[in-house]
């Protein structure tokens, strides 16, 4: 897979075993237009398919991860067109990524930008990050997970305040609420995110994907079903070389070498 560079609003680079996906539209605070969303969906799919990649870091700029959807793009949508829109498809593609994703958030992370970050598996933020779902102030609601994903991390009250007031919260408040998993100085954000992603990438890749799949099962099934699903996924892993290697390495008191088989 070639690196996408130059004037693309979404850039992907491979630093094996990581893929670094960067939203790069600083003149618009990384606002999400069709090009950005299509680029993100493509980058995530490419990273998911690339055998060199075991974990993904998704980031934006120093001043903005993403300030949200391009208003011009939203204003062209209708009740009929939105469910099948590029916006909806792009977010679905991001959420469908099988490999672990670390969101590295600095500056504004609002609206659709916040929905992208919260759809990732781990969120590391700089002390300058600001999170919010301001859609209600435009007479609409978050349409890509923003009425659901806050609750999963921070509880019903925080979800309600975010969706109903549209008020932003700062990085330290986000950390206290559990919206963010770790807080770092802005200057250390990308190295910290990459360090964590490398840690995730060092784990057995099949188990990583299986764990993510099992965690996401609760998005589509009740608890009982998700628990049964977890058992089935675990049973499948026991047949893998990586599981044999992991258990053998533990018993032999040596580091495991996982090959993704």
């Amino acid at each position: 897979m070639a690196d996408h560079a130059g004037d693309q609003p979404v850039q992907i680079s491979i630093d094996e075993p990581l893929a670094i996906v960067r939203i790069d539209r600083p003149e618009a605070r990384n606002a999400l237009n069709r090009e950005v969303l299509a680029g993100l969906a493509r980058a995530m799919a490419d990273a998911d398919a690339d055998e060199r990649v075991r974990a993904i870091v998704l980031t934006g700029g120093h001043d903005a991860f993403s300030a949200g959807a391009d208003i011009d793009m939203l204003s062209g949508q209708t009740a009929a067109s939105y469910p099948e829109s590029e916006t909806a498809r792009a977010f679905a593609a991001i959420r469908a990524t099988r490999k672990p994703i670390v969101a590295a958030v600095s500056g504004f992370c609002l609206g659709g930008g916040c929905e992208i970050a919260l759809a990732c598996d781990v969120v590391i933020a700089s002390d300058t990050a600001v999170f919010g779902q301001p859609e209600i102030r435009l007479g609409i609601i978050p349409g890509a997970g923003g009425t659901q994903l806050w609750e999963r991390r921070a509880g019903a009250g925080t979800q309600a305040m975010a969706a109903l007031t549209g008020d932003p919260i700062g990085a330290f408040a986000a950390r206290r609420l559990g919206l963010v998993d770790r807080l770092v100085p802005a200057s250390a954000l990308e190295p910290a995110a990459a360090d964590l992603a490398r840690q995730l990438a060092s784990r057995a890749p099949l188990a990583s994907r299986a764990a993510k799949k099992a965690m996401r099962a609760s998005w589509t099934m009740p608890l009982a079903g998700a628990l049964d699903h977890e058992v089935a996924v675990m049973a499948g892993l026991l047949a893998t070389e990586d599981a044999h290697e992991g258990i053998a390495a533990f018993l032999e008191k040596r580091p495991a070498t996982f090959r993704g088989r």
Partner: protein
Amino acid sequence: MAVLEILKDMDDAALRRTLSKAVRGADTLLVRGRLDTPLEGAATAWIKVLHATSVPVFLEAAGSVGERGLALMLLADCFDGDDLRLVPDAQRHPLIAALAVHRLGSLAARRLAVAEDPLAQLLALQRVEGASAVTSELKQAWRAAGELPLEEALDFASLLPAARDHKTEESR
């Protein structure tokens, strides 16, 4: 250095706007001007701006110090001033109480509230002449220590450039 002059009729909303603008991109901020204004509920907005900024803030105090002035003295990283006169009971405002605990600790906050000469008490505790020691990184570390559990605050502080540079120098 950015300079913010608090004017006679500057209300809390205007102060918040002016402060927000002043700290954006500034290396340091010097605040001076009218300090005798009472605090109202809307003051929490600019107090939060000053609390959150990593820009070192210096206060030049002069004349009559009211609730707003006291709040600024507590929030500033250092201040200096002579011939200061405290507006009676300014130290007993609830916002001052909350700020004082945060900046001085519980016991010192209580002493401030009941002191015969609160200004002298505050000056003794807070007065720092000369301001070059306060850096943006120190403020970031202070804020992290105030907002995060200790383990997380330590992890945060260890990633600040000064901590990393120090480590690099030691290893040479």
